[in-house]
């Protein structure tokens, strides 16, 4: 899983030779991160699906989060070496499109996982409907505060469809329910340090912030650190997360987090590789597979924990 990028093409070649011997089909899986807690769950799902389907998974992560050029390079290598299908989580929806077009033209099915591709058709798009889930997040967040109380929203990368859809969905649903509440944004590129510093700056300059909502749970954890740095206790400022990452669920039990729209991360990886394997066998695959979500609140946290295996 944590394979060095520079070794990727060598590894692809080696695995393809090996696969010819034991006649297992090779599915390329280009992930977005091997170190992010949420992505590790997705990657786990992908590995389990590959084992269940009896295919060989060649998983490659980018050199650093958000590195498009390395993803393009790996993509071309996989196509050149003749992978049976490719599952990709693009770091840049539009940037990956030319590579996707080439692969599809060469007859290799491409499944987009988590983040869509804009400007190219894919065999299937397996992901949470970020916009719809973010609307749920915004509506739930609105119920936690009074109209007129200002809140902070920690955004994800606004150059990506995932970041844009989550922000837009949240803002639309929240503003509809709480039209007089000001939303102060902390821009990040999915980096919890940026979230922590931005939230700390705003909380320190204004005393009236009632809630911090986050586009992903790395931001939620950064926001908790910011609150602790300023001496706030659990519950002084409401927190709303997105992802259902295990550390955010633990923080919910401690009273920091009040609602979290969990993506079915494991399912995303699992369904993504299953769709890729099915497409590689020439079976029909639904062009859009919605992996759903789970609204985690203090009352449903136990159910969710049991479901995804958080102790």
């Amino acid at each position, binding site marked *: 899983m*944590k394979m*060095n990028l520079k070794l990727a093409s060598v590894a692809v070649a080696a695995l393809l030779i090996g696969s010819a011997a034991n006649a297992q089909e090779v599915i390329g899986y280009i992930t977005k991160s*091997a*170190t*992010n*807690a949420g992505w*590790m769950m997705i990657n786990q799902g992908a590995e389990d699906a590959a084992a269940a389907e009896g295919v060989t998974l060649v998983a490659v992560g980018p050199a*650093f*989060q958000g590195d498009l050029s390395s993803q393009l390079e790996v993509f071309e290598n996989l196509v050149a070496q003749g992978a049976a299908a490719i599952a990709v989580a693009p770091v840049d929806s539009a940037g990956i499109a030319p590579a996707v077009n080439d692969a599809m033209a060469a007859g290799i099915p491409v499944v987009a996982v988590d983040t869509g591709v*804009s*400007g190219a058709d894919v065999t299937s798009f397996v992901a949470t409907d970020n916009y719809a889930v973010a609307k749920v997040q915004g509506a739930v967040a609105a119920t936690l505060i009074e109209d007129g109380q200002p809140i902070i929203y920690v*955004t994800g990368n*606004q*150059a990506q469809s995932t970041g844009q859809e989550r922000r837009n969905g949240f803002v639309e649903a929240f503003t509809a329910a709480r039209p007089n509440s000001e939303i*102060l*944004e*902390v*821009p990040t590129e999915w*980096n*919890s*340090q*940026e979230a*922590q*510093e*931005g939230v*700390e*700056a*705003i909380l*320190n*300059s*204004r*005393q009236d912030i009632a809630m911090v909502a986050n586009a992903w749970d790395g931001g939620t*954890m*950064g926001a*908790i*650190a910011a609150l*602790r*740095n*300023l*001496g706030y206790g659990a519950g002084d400022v409401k927190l709303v997360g997105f992802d259902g990452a295990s*550390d955010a669920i*633990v923080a919910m039990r401690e009273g920091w987090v009040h609602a979290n729209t969990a993506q079915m991360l494991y399912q995303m990886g699992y369904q993504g590789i299953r769709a890729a394997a099915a497409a590689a066998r020439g079976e029909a695959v639904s062009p859009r597979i919605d992996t759903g979500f789970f609204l985690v609140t203090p009352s449903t946290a136990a159910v969710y924990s049991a479901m995804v295996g958080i102790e």
Partner: protein
Amino acid sequence: MTDIVQDRAGRSLQDRAVVAMVKFFRADWSGAFLAIVILGIAIELATTGRPFFHPSNLMTILNNSAAIGVIAAGMTLVIITAGIDLSVGSVMGMTAALTGYVVSFWGFPPSLAILTGLALGLAVGAFNGSLVAYFGMPAFIVTLAGLSIWRGTGHLTTGAQATPELPNTFDYFGRFNPFSGLREAYNNGELTGLWHSIGGFVDANWINFFRTFQMSMLIFIGFFIVLTIIIANTRYGRWVYAIGSNEPGARQAGINTARYMLITYMFCSFTAALGALLFLGRAPYAKSDYGQMWELDAIAAVVIGGTSLFGGRGSLWGTFMGVILLKLINNGLTLAQLDTFWQMVVTGLIILVAVGIDIVRQSKNPESVRKLLAAIAAVMAFLACMTPGAIYLRAKIAILEHNAAEAMRAAGQQLAPGHNARLLSPSELEAFQTAAQANITAAALLSLLVIAAGYVVFRGKALLTWLLAAGFVAMIVPLVALGYQITAPFLVLGAVVAMGSNFVFTIFKKARMLDANAS
């Protein structure tokens, strides 16, 4: 520090101002400092509520500068020796992850884990430094390899998993507040007499001041003070500069350059490990992907602070200012709620301004200074122009895109979703046309001002410059009448800078004269 009452040289107020100005601009840190002040004023104007220059906000910036700040200090010394260390971000990430790992999963007591982390930093530095100093390998390549090796090692040893929350001992490197105990005791009613009144004072000013008075900031400032004293007063400090300005010469003079370079790289990696501890003191958990791209931030801070990438020249306080400028940009632009993509553009521009001031400062040429001031006036005119200009351009572009998409549809092409999104409804089209109409006058007027200011950059006749300054002032009234109050601060600043550029030669002449008299 000229005393107003007793100036023994009997100089006039004006002379003393000139002397103070020259003294200020001789300091390596003046470029970054000036950029901080300019940016601070701009953010002050753009934000409402609590002032930007509030001590509590400044302390928050210092707190969040601490981790990258100490690393930039180590980087400064390496760069002064004409070297570079690209591995600091990875070393920071690895030591942060491993320190957290041994304390969380191996049951190390926090103090031992901290020592492990610091020792690890020294060991990595010894590895990097030996290759550079004793094996003659280029620092750029050695530390670029290190960037990959140490990041990978961090991921491998900890499985790239986040640790649970760290023990409170780590708070002493970060969020611990020396006054929190006192405040708690006061609130519990345990204090009497003088302590009671001190406790009351702390409690009353908690949110406004004491809340952000934290260890991060204290360690950060203390570290710089101690390091400056060491560099200024030890042989090591002098050798570092000597090696950077002329390494073969230093060796011939009998300096063991290899040993001092090794020490410098060890110190730099040590600061990366210390930075990791300072970061852990404020972070939610320990994880091996901390510190990504920090090497670039550290190098940027060092260069913004006036240190030469070619070695031999630079100062720690310049780096201090550079770090604060970088953090101030993030903090200020977030508070000003500037659009995300604009933040990226503005961040780059501010760095250019800081480095531009530094280069002009070093040139010691009055014409360069005048050009810089005129250029700033042109930028102010441009910023003022952007307010109506952006609305005008956006409206015009929207109409253009609509027409292009219409033309494609008329030609019978199938439209992609991106094209459809650019089609406007009749009412939208009308709104954009009105917006373009309403803003064209102001945009045109201000564009003229931009062109005039741009001309003055290259042809700086005194009369022309006065006319330009007058132009700035004259613009204010009609623009405010048109409803562009927001452009007024830019125009005022532009007028001041343009007028100031006329005095540059006089001030330089005066300064040179005073300098000659003094010596």
